């Protein structure tokens, strides 16, 4: 899991430009699945056939978005600084001082404009420094439309790992691990689809056409969620296992799906938590999968992340492993909802 995570976090893949991530995921996944392709929008869709001989086998769609939040350059100033907008959920307050990298490895540094008060911190009052003293010199290094990403290499604390790209390469790593283990499992009656969706760091988007094409019987989304980080209002705890999301933005867990997830956690003797929140940033691909076609019952498992949506997000490998185990527990047996 750590190796997969390490590989995935350093790949350049902002929303709408996921091709490199798609390529790596495809390479990682190919040995474990029967079919894998990329659709018209860039979603990676892989399928592991089920071993059941039932006439209408149950289809499960696992989903994790593979894009990450980034900074898109909107202007090059006469002094050679870059203006930008955040694409995705990165908090502006975590940006000043952050080192960033552009597509071809162009280095940059985010800085607050002079004279900005702490309470006024916003992405519109910052710039990226690329070491250019005027517009022409800057344009040689970066142009409007380029996306810079916080430098993302994994900071290894042992069980805990930190990187700005954990939202949602951590979810992708879990799915890759599930595929790896499922392949060598004797029994997996259901057809399992692994979808790595595009543009999910912004809004539930790419997952919708993917679900429309697959028409699964059950959707299961893996994403990151806020864990308690020094404040008092959040209840998820890093290291206490995956969270079964009961309520998130535009999402309410169908009771049957919630029970399925909880039963599996108990059966596998895992520590698990519940997440009940109405915060806007908690939109997940579930909202898109649910309403595709005639509808799909969808569940969400979230990985507790301290500093979620900042450049210093931290997850626990044990939580990731437990999430994979939970999913495998569900997939190893016939599913009844």
């Amino acid at each position: 899991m750590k190796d997969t995570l390490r590989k995935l976090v350093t790949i350049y893949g902002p929303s709408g430009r996921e091709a490199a991530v798609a390529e790596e995921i495809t390479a990682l996944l190919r040995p474990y699945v029967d079919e894998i392709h990329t659709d018209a929008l860039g979603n990676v869709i892989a399928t592991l056939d089920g071993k059941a001989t039932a006439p209408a086998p149950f289809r499960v769609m696992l989903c994790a978005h593979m894009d990450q939040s980034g900074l898109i350059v909107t202007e090059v100033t006469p002094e050679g600084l870059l203006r930008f907008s955040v694409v995705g959920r990165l908090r502006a307050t975590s940006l000043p001082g952050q080192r960033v990298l552009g597509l071809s490895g162009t280095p940059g540094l985010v800085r607050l404009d002079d004279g900005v008060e702490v309470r006024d911190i916003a992405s519109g009052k910052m710039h990226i420094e690329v070491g250019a003293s005027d517009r022409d010199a800057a344009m040689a290094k970066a142009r409007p439309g380029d996306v810079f990403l916080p430098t993302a290499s994994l900071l290894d604390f042992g069980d805990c790992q930190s990187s700005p790209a954990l939202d949602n390469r951590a979810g992708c790593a879990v799915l890759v691990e599930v595929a790896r283990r499922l392949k060598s499992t004797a029994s997996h009656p259901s057809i399992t689809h692994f979808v790595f969706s595009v543009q999910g760091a912004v809004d539930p988007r790419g997952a919708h056409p993917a679900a429309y094409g697959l028409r699964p019987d059950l959707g299961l989304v893996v994403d990151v969620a806020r864990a308690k980080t020094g404040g008092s209002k959040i209840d998820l705890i890093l290291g206490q296992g995956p969270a079964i999301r009961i309520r998130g933005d535009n999402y309410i867990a169908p009771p049957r799906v919630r029970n399925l997830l909880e039963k599996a956690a108990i059966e596998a003797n895992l520590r698990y938590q519940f997440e009940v929140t109405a915060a806007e940033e908690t939109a997940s691909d579930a909202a898109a999968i649910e309403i595709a076609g005639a509808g799909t019952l969808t569940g969400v498992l979230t990985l507790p992340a301290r500093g979620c949506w900042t450049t210093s997000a931290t997850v626990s490998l044990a939580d990731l492993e437990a999430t994979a185990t939970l999913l495998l527990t569900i997939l190893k047996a016939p599913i009844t909802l």
Partner: protein
Amino acid sequence: MLRPDTVALLSRLSEACGLAGDEGDVRAVLRETLEGQACEIYTDTIGNLICRKGNGPVRVMLDAHMDEVGLVVAGYHDSGLLRFKESGGLDPRVLPGRSVLVGRSKISGVIGTQAVHLLDRSERDKVIPAKELFIDIGARSRDEAASVTTPGDPVYFATRFERLSDTIVKGKAFDDRVGCVVVAHTLLEHDYPDLTLFGVFSVQEEVGLRGARVAAYHLAPHLALAIDATSSADVPGVDPPATSSHLGQGPAISLLDGTIVMHQKMREQLVTLAERHGLPHQYRRLTTAGTDAGGIFLQRVGVPACTMSVPCRYIHCPASLASLDDLSDTIRLAHLFLESLDKGEFTL
């Protein structure tokens, strides 16, 4: 340079009246313009006007929306004044002191306000909320007003199209009649044997990209290019990137907006073609708001989509300004893009 009949079409479209859900006038002008031009023309259930040209293997949707922002009659005051609501994202500051046209029969009306002499100091500096404004058509009673209008009737700005100079034009509804001109011109002037080209004049974009979603579903194109108008704030007191785009610098290619990150290859192809042919072009700097591409790309199993816009000043206001050079360059770039698809030079 634009042909005179293209400018004439823009003039007709600018003065035509089409609010979200009530685009009939615009539809009629476009139908008349395109009839007999080797396209199959029809209207779908939600009111999109679809023109299909060609039978080639690559299905392309070229889209512009017919609806503009404006007002709707919502009720009456006993005195005969009309109450109204806003349709689409109109800036309420542009309403007082306006001439308008009400309903299908284009009854003349005005939106007035209290004489400034009668205001006290503090009121003079405040924006008048839309709720305190009325439309006056000269009716003296509620019954009289209700006899010549109906709740739901559209209300338009009485702006005439005018050419301010060789290149700059003024009119209402450039968002998105300029796009409609690009699509119509493309259908009239060009043939693409390897494409099935769907010229889609969509409805209800201003209230949520509604028509385009429906069209993309039933047409199931391989890719879609939306032509819209975008805000140019290249005016005093605004610094980049808030200026977003500049009049005279060519079509503004979108990077992303609030509904979609544009398809990278399509976007890059537009830039490549513009550079190769020496066409002025720019990026739209704003990353908010939405265009039909956002409604199109998630239909069925996904449709690669991108938006290209004609820069316009004062975009959701009664009188917008645009450059005919920008319009002409947008037409040219759209054609180059379709041509590159047709010739197989560009594939997804």
